[in-house]
């Protein structure tokens, strides 16, 4: 891919988009002018209303029979004014605004007792009539009710005092409430319900128009073929257009966020000045965001914008014209709003599977960052899964662009048909197919695999390996008509490749194990959840069938299925695009990332590096399978106590504590064994003379 070409396309698309008035209005006009206008005018109105209501007196009409005592109480508030009015037509009077409320004695049989009931220690029934839809009437209701409650409270105290009863008698409890959530968390919770949804809406809104304009719009205007006739690859075109769409999406999102933040801050200042009750119980001013949190939000926003933009572009490309594309994208737009809405539903937290739920995970994390409760693992998980979805969406976009029936669609409607016959038979998959295999396997692993493993670990592992990884790798390659023997390197290697791989495996078991010890000591501790999840591996000690079942699930299955996916499908596809070193490294990193738990990523990546190199150098998958089998198999044997734990660097100290680490001699021997293994594979086990 040529960067200058991609940049040229991206700049031209941006220039053209920015020259369109509709876009400018949606992207810049709304955030920069409309928000402040609406919010500020709204605030002014609230402040004005509040001030007006405070200044206005409340006019009350008293019906026949309201005792003089009550009238006296009302008279103590100078904002309450007793006026004359027709209390028999109260509703009309309220509507005409000749008075605000009517106070009348309740319906009791003996109205004459009303005058003395208060002195006699009885209960006076009163009805306050008002109209809740008239602001002045509603305000009068509040003011008069408050006044009468205060007066009643004072009367209660006096009655108790007269009867010689201590006030505590009617107040057995004095409950004080204290909210321990720090102000920032409270403010974040409040804002966190609305802001993520707004943010996702803005990203979508920003991507919407360019995604349609640069695909279906270009088709409609008849300029697509002009572009296709230039010496650019389809991939360059997709990337160029895609950068423009993501740029618009992010710019709209950030402009909106910034404009909202400034407006909100201004509004809060005004409300606070107008009086504390206007600003609400939660002090939004407590909401300060650190630069780190801003960085983290941006970190998530980028893949989110990528995901939304790529998906919208793919959808819009299927349409022949602008309007049709809008019809395709609108439902998608609503669909991405739904998970964002989930955030405001109480009880949904960012744990387990929700970390991998697209859009919703970002919204939840966004809220977590605002509330100061987000953890590093959450940030990592959300970023990884969002990036994964984004890559997949982008891959789909590239694939769509390379389909001439989609790009040159002249018939109306969705031209999408997926037939095996449309693919050209080939020896190796493309890099795109490899990435797609990885992304599909990862997603199924997240949703089906983790669920199955949570139900029952061992059978869940077997289901993950044989039910997900292997079928995805083999199925996808078969579907796109790739020669499986060549792509998966199923031919046997030279015998020394096996010997070398075994030596490397024995060496690396010790070296990688030692690295894990160091890491858990200095860097990342093994999460409790991970250790606890592994306990089924220790069940039924001494049982041979259990040992065999676990060995099959943890050693044999991954050695075959993971190797077919990573050293087969993924490596061969990446090789068609990248230089060998880069292809091996990327495969190893993907292999590492597949192990999800942060503490497992570095060791499995290193291990992946060694295994991938063996497969590449020997030209065969089988030494890699052996390597993987030895590595996992030894771990199973140690955990099941078939071989002593000291072999795995665990020394039991007197008192039950365990010291972790190998003696230096062991490490040196392991290193020698590993290097010797490399040499064996390199010289006597290589099947690729052209790679020398």
């Amino acid at each position: 891919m040529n960067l200058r070409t991609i940049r040229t396309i991206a700049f031209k698309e941006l220039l053209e988009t920015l020259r369109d008035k509709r876009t400018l209005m949606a992207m810049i006009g709304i955030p920069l002018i409309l928000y402040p206008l609406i919010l500020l005018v709204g605030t002014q109105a609230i402040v004005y209303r509040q001030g007006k209501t405070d200044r206005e007196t409340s006019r009350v009409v008293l019906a026949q029979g309201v005792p003089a005592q009550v009238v006296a109480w009302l008279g103590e508030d100078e904002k309450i004014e007793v006026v004359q009015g027709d209390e028999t037509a109260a509703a009309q009077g309220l509507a005409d605004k000749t008075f605000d409320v009517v106070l009348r004695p309740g319906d009791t049989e003996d109205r004459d007792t009303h005058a003395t009931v208060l002195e006699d220690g009885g209960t006076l029934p009163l009805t306050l009539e008002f109209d809740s839809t008239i602001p002045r009437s509603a305000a009068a209701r509040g003011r008069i009710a408050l006044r009468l409650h205060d007066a009643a409270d004072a009367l209660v105290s006096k009655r108790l005092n007269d009867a010689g009863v201590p006030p505590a008698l009617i107040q057995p409890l004095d409950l004080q409430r204290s909210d321990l959530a720090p102000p920032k968390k409270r403010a974040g919770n409040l804002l966190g319900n609305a802001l993520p949804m707004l943010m996702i809406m803005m990203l979508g809104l920003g991507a919407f128009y360019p995604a349609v304009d640069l695909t279906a719009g270009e088709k409609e205007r008849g300029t697509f073929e002009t572009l296709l006739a230039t010496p650019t690859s389809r991939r360059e075109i997709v990337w160029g257009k895609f950068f423009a769409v993501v740029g618009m999406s992010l710019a709209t999102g950030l402009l909106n966020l910034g404009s909202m933040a400034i407006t909100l801050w201004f509004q809060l200042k005004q409300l606070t000045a107008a009086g504390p009750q206007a600003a609400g119980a939660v002090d939004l001013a407590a909401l300060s965001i650190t630069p780190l949190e801003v960085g983290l939000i941006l970190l998530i926003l980028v893949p989110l914008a990528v995901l939304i933009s790529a998906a919208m572009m793919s959808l819009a490309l299927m349409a022949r014209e602008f309007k049709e594309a809008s019809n395709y994208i609108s439902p998608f737009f609503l669909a991405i709003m739904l998970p964002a809405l989930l955030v405001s539903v109480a009880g949904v937290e960012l744990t387990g599977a929700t970390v991998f739920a697209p859009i919703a995970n970002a919204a939840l994390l966004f809220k977590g960052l605002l509330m100061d409760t987000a953890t590093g693992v959450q940030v990592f998980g959300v970023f990884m899964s969002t990036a994964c979805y984004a890559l997949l969406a982008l891959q789909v976009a590239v694939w769509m662009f390379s389909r001439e029936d989609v790009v040159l669609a002249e018939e109306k409607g969705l031209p999408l048909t997926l037939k095996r016959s449309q693919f050209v038979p080939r020896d190796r998959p493309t890099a795109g197919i490899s990435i797609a295999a990885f992304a599909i396997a990862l997603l199924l692993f997240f949703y089906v695999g983790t669920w199955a493993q949570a139900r029952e670990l061992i059978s869940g592992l077997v289901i993950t390996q044989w039910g997900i990884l292997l079928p995805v790798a083999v199925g996808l390659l078969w579907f796109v008509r790739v020669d499986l023997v060549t792509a998966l390197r199923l031919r046997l290697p030279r015998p020394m490749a096996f010997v070398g791989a075994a030596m490397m495996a024995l060496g690396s078991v010790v070296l990688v194990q030692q690295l894990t010890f160091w890491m858990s000591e200095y860097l990342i501790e093994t999460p409790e959840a991970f250790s606890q999840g592994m306990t089924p591996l220790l069940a039924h000690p001494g049982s041979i069938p259990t040992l065999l079942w676990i060995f099959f699930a943890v050693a044999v299955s991954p050695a075959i299925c993971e190797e077919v996916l990573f050293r087969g499908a993924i490596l061969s596809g990446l090789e068609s695009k990248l230089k060998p070193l880069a292809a091996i490294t990327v495969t190893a990193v993907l292999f590492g990332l597949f192990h999800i738990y942060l503490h497992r990523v570095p060791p499995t990546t290193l291990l992946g590096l060694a295994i991938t190199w063996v497969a590449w150098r020997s030209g065969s998958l089988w030494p890699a399978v052996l390597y993987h089998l030895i590595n996992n198999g030894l771990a199973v044997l140690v955990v099941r106590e078939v071989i002593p734990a000291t072999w795995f660097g665990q020394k039991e100290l007197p008192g039950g504590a365990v010291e972790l680490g190998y003696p230096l001699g062991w490490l040196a021997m392991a290193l020698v064994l590993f290097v010797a293994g490399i040499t064996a594979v390199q010289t006597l086990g290589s099947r690729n003379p052209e790679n020398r």
Partner: protein
Amino acid sequence: MIQAVDLTKTFHPPRGKPVEAVRAVNFEVAPGEVYGLLGPNGAGKTSLLRMLGTIITPTSGHCAVGGLSSVDDPVGVRRRVGFMSGNTKLYRRLSGRETLRYFGRLHGIADDALATRIDELIAAFDLTDFIDRRCDSYSTGQMQRVSIARVMLHDPPVLILDEPTLGLDIMSSRTMLDFVGQARDRGTAVIFSTHYMTEAELLCDRIGFLYAGRLLAEGTTDQLYAQTGATNLKDAFLSMADAADAEAAR
């Protein structure tokens, strides 16, 4: 310069039977030659030219431009080809100059050389008056001239023109035909499709009749007249098309 061997294209519409748009077509075009592709609407002219221009890939057979295979090196082919059709319109929100700059860069021309080249083309096709206005304000003729300049940016040895005079007025048509004549004189291999018989008679060194995806016949006008006993291209074409229909009915 242009070579098509058993070139075939089959489309699979979402509904209905597969459509064989181009069926095993063979022909060659030499440098300095104008090859006319004649045929009614739906004959497969556009699909054939799109395959030559690597906009779409052949279902079977192959084609090459300047010795490069359109399947193995489509980008290399596009570097050598100037492609223009009814569907290669201009970006309305860009000016003519921005359009030329954009496509020049996509052809990998360095910025300095590109500025010089654009000035040359502005002079050659008399674009000065409107080149800095947006394309949406152009007349059809102005649009045509900028499109020609766009095709000539990288001075391609091969021109593929799909009905370049369709919908043009007399003056604009003449500009187009003059342009094709000049390109031939400079040694460019030109293939151009049309269904205006007079245009083909006037301009083409050799003509191929395309009908229902097949190349019924090819040759100079005189050869085609001799084969059919006709005295003009229209009659020659119709008699071949009738013969093809009769054979298909049998």
